[in-house]
């Protein structure tokens, strides 16, 4: 199969296994895409981790800890897929802490209050699940299979998020205010999350059917599913142009694509601090890995 035939094969729904012959460009695109997903799972726990010790109840503390454990588990599974494609996990971690590879924009921002934690668990997870569900149809079968387990675990997370939101929204005025402030803070990054509305055919990830959903389709699906939920709780979205047209399409103000680019290239408000934490944690725990590996050998 030459590259053109391979592309036609994956476009028609063909699936690819680890040992199959594949074009170099396809392998490179897979590594880039899946590695960024693994990085995002690993970095995505940090904003929430910061709240484990400050969670309002023991139940929330336990749930948040469990969620953090799930996400780290996802990153392990995802890095395994990358590893089988030829890039070892150690190299992925090295590149991540060196700032050479990327992770999702939303994990570069601070969590100022418990309201942010609730909004992350509710809306950021919702946006992520939309992309992850679409990946169940990825042309690379080992990745698609792993997504099944990941999506299953994400379904608990989103309920946890809604539960946190409802607890706050049925609480005091101050608690409701916390949620509103957080929604206002996160709306910009949420609208940037699925990426610029590049035409699917121009997206190399779509080309190889690594992604099978256009960025704008994912964003529309998010708006469709969640704006009504936001509104029904009496919350507002900081975008005066946001409305659903009669044909069902959502209109909104142009997201700040410069901010997205600036943030994911390592200039977010928390990028340096969080990568610094990862570096520190890798150094601090290096002796454990050495001891374990020596003992196991």
């Amino acid at each position, binding site marked *: 199969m030459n590259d053109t035939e391979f592309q036609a094969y994956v476009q028609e729904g063909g699936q690819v296994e680890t040992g199959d012959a594949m074009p170099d460009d396809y392998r490179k695109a897979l590594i880039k895409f899946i590695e960024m997903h693994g990085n995002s799972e690993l970095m995505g726990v940090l904003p929430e981790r910061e709240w484990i010790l400050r969670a309002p109840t023991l139940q929330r503390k336990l749930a948040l800890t*469990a969620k953090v454990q799930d996400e780290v588990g996802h990153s392990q*599974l995802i890095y*395994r897929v990358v590893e*089988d494609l030829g890039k070892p996990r150690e190299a992925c971690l090295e590149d991540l802490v060196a700032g050479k590879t990327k992770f999702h924009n939303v994990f570069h921002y601070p969590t100022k209050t418990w309201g942010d934690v609730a909004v992350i668990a509710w809306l950021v997870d919702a946006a992520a699940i939309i992309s992850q569900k679409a990946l169940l149809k990825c042309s690379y079968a080992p990745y698609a*299979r792993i997504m099944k387990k990941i999506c299953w675990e994400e379904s608990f997370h989103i309920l946890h998020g809604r539960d946190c939101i409802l607890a706050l929204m049925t609480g005091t005025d101050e608690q409701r205010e916390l949620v509103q402030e957080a929604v206002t803070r996160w709306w910009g990054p949420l609208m940037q999350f699925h990426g610029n509305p590049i035409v699917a055919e121009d997206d190399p990830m779509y080309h190889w059917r690594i992604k099978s959903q256009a960025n704008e389709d994912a964003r529309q699906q998010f708006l469709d599913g969640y704006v009504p939920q936001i509104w029904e709780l009496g919350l507002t979205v900081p975008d005066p142009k946001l409305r659903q047209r009669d044909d069902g399409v959502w209109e909104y103000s142009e997201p700040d694509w410069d901010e997205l680019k600036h943030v994911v290239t390592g200039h977010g408000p928390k990028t340096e601090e969080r990568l610094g934490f990862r570096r520190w944690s890798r150094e601090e725990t290096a002796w454990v890995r050495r001891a374990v*590996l020596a003992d*196991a050998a």
Partner: protein
Amino acid sequence: MIFEVFRQEREGQPFQHGGSLEAPNLAFAETYARELYGRRDESFALWIVPRESVEEVLDPYVADVFDRDYRRVDGYSLKVKLKEARGRAGTAGTG
């Protein structure tokens, strides 16, 4: 070392591939597999197999050199024969 993990979701069901993990030995692999696949009681049992012990056979179909329909359900067309047998027994149309 890479270990492949197979999970059985419920008792009596077939084992299905769940994913793979990296561990220095089988004891660690078991601990990791429990954490990754057993945290929510979602697996009844696990098989943990070193990857190199898995023998992959691609295209396992044994070539159809002879007519092998006697191995398959569609190799047994009973309708006509049953009709004839019933006719001879004088029970045609009763069942």
